[in-house]
């Protein structure tokens, strides 16, 4: 077990270094940082001066080392577009994204899991067919389109819910929360539904497919042959065996909510990290891009690590390292 953990940690570290490297290359070599800071009629001498001052003439690995050091200290450079330190921008925007992702994640699990189980157990009922068709539509609908349709119905036509922004937020230290105000909660509704839609459909289909697969196994057949109650079979055996692989995949899926938040934030002009990232791409704001890359990679690497460990904890077959005893 320990060997497994150390191996995974080492792998994660490797990935992070790789990502840092890509970010570094982006940062320093692509999109000349100098020309973004000086006006275009600066003399070559001035350019050279700045280059020297910023240490851009040092050896490659020295620069990389410095870069990693900076990142670890939280210094992610200054945004080309907005002029503020990137780390400050990220901290400002983080709560918005996290709250949105949290709501969407909870919704996806709370609705997707039970529905998936239901459609798996009652494969042929018309209710199941309805949900299944709905989930197929959900998987085919791009997130941004769902957002637009929701806006059209609930904002433009009915005027019930806001289409832009977070509403009023309350600040606790560096965190600004929209959970505690009425307008904040209202503003959360449409974006959360938009963000969760695709994830919900995917989770539903995943759970259902796994459930159907499990119900076909020999051990379920044997359980029925032993006269176990329907409840024991469906929930004690089938459900548990379904959730074990599913819960781990779901972990990764939910992680991707952060990525999909980019789209949702764009549609609703939600002031989160995703919107920041898109604007950075559009305006070639390399420091922000690089920082976002590093942050997101860290996030995913951590999620994958947790999920892998979870698998280990939950499936007894992976824990055994002794051979079978005859």
């Amino acid at each position: 077990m320990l060997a497994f953990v150390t191996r995974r940690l080492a792998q994660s570290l490797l990935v992070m270094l790789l990502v840092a490297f890509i970010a570094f290359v982006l940062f320093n070599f692509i999109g000349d940082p100098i020309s973004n800071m000086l006006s275009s009629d600066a003399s070559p001498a001035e350019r050279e001066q700045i280059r020297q001052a910023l240490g851009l003439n040092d050896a490659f690995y020295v620069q990389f080392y410095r870069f990693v050091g900076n990142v670890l200290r939280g210094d992610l450079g200054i945004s080309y577009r907005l002029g503020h330190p990137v780390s400050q921008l990220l901290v400002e925007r983080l709560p918005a994204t996290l709250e949105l992702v949290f709501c969407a994640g909870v919704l996806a699990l709370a609705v997707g899991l039970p529905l998936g189980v239901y459609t798996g157990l009652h494969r042929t009922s018309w209710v199941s067919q309805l949900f299944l068709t709905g989930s197929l539509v959900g998987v085919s609908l791009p997130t941004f389109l769902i957002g637009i349709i929701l806006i059209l119905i609930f904002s433009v036509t009915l005027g019930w819910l806001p289409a832009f922004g977070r509403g009023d937020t309350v600040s606790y230290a560096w965190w600004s929360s929209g959970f505690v105000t009425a307008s904040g909660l209202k503003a959360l509704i449409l974006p959360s539904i938009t963000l969760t839609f695709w994830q919900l459909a995917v989770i539903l289909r995943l759970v259902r497919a796994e459930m159907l697969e499990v119900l076909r196994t020999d051990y379920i057949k044997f359980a029925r042959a032993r006269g176990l109650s329907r409840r024991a079979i469906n929930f004690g055996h089938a459900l548990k065996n379904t959730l074990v692989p599913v819960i781990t995949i779901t972990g990764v899926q939910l992680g991707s909510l952060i990525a999909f938040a980019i789209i949702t934030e764009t549609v609703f002009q939600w002031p989160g990290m995703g919107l920041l990232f898109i604007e950075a791409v559009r305006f070639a704001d390399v420091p922000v891009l690089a920082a976002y890359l590093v942050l997101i990679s860290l996030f995913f690497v951590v999620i994958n690590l947790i999920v892998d460990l979870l698998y280990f904890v939950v499936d007894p077959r992976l824990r055994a390292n002794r051979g079978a005893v005859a």
Partner: protein
Amino acid sequence: MTEPREALLDIRNLRVEFPTRRGTLCAIDDVSLTIGEGEILGVVGESGAGKSLTGSAVIGLLPEPGRIVQGEIHLSGRRIDGLSDEEMRRIRGKEIGAIFQDPLTSLNPLYSIAYQLVETIRTHLDLTAKQARKRALDLLQEVGIPAAEERMDGYPHEFSGGMRQRVVIALALAAHPRLIIADEPTTALDVSIQAQIIAVLKRLCREHHASVMLITHDMGVIAEAADRVAVMYAGRIAETGPVEEVIRRARHPYTYGLMGSIPQLKTPAERLSQIDGAMPRLTEMPDGCAFHPRCPRAVDRCRAQRPPIEVVAAGHDVACWLFESAPKPGARI
């Protein structure tokens, strides 16, 4: 029909069909069997002969979209083939137990052996958790799991194939059913383990006074374990009778062919005899006797008319037009 003692299980004229898009397939065609109390009936035949399906039909677990369209199944005089799912569930485990082929996939990998045993015991018997656990331990010791007490909280993958099958037998017998359907219980095991498992099965069924429907394609297992044997071919019964008699003087050409394929130490032979050809597919059943295309003794009547079940001797039936002229033991066809 022959009934040696008060029949525990009585299958009469069973017909099972599968509606498919190519038409309706008849997988079990007018099959009748009986199993007496404490008796081990072997059901033998090639893959696809319908033996497993017969077992599944009895326990009410026919795979979709199979249906019983005709016939009756009686357990201790009570008719069980038309019961509701809930009523059938109460019978399963308590009155009829089942053992399947692959012990690794028969056990839920995520639960310990003890858990699965206790769960089964408490479903059918009103015991406390502690009592059930004691009961489980007793069962495990009965089937011969060494150091049962220490290992019962282990998981299925921690046991070898033979041990797992013993656990499966313990699970099947947990609620003391009177009939066990054993569907190819040794096929997935090493040859050296097979004999052990058969011995365990025989011993436990004798001790628990349980009858067994032993389904297998291996005549050697039948010869070793069964009291009577029913030979199935293409969904139909070819021959039924006491094991020694059927082996010694098979009345059906197919059975005769099967016996010839058992290697014998005593009789020198250069080659094992085999039956040429293959069992017909359910979609291409011939008219008349299902075996006639492969039968070395087939006559016109065999090709035209399906032979009915005829009584040869007490407890010995056969479905063949030529049973009276079946060769004496030792003769070559």
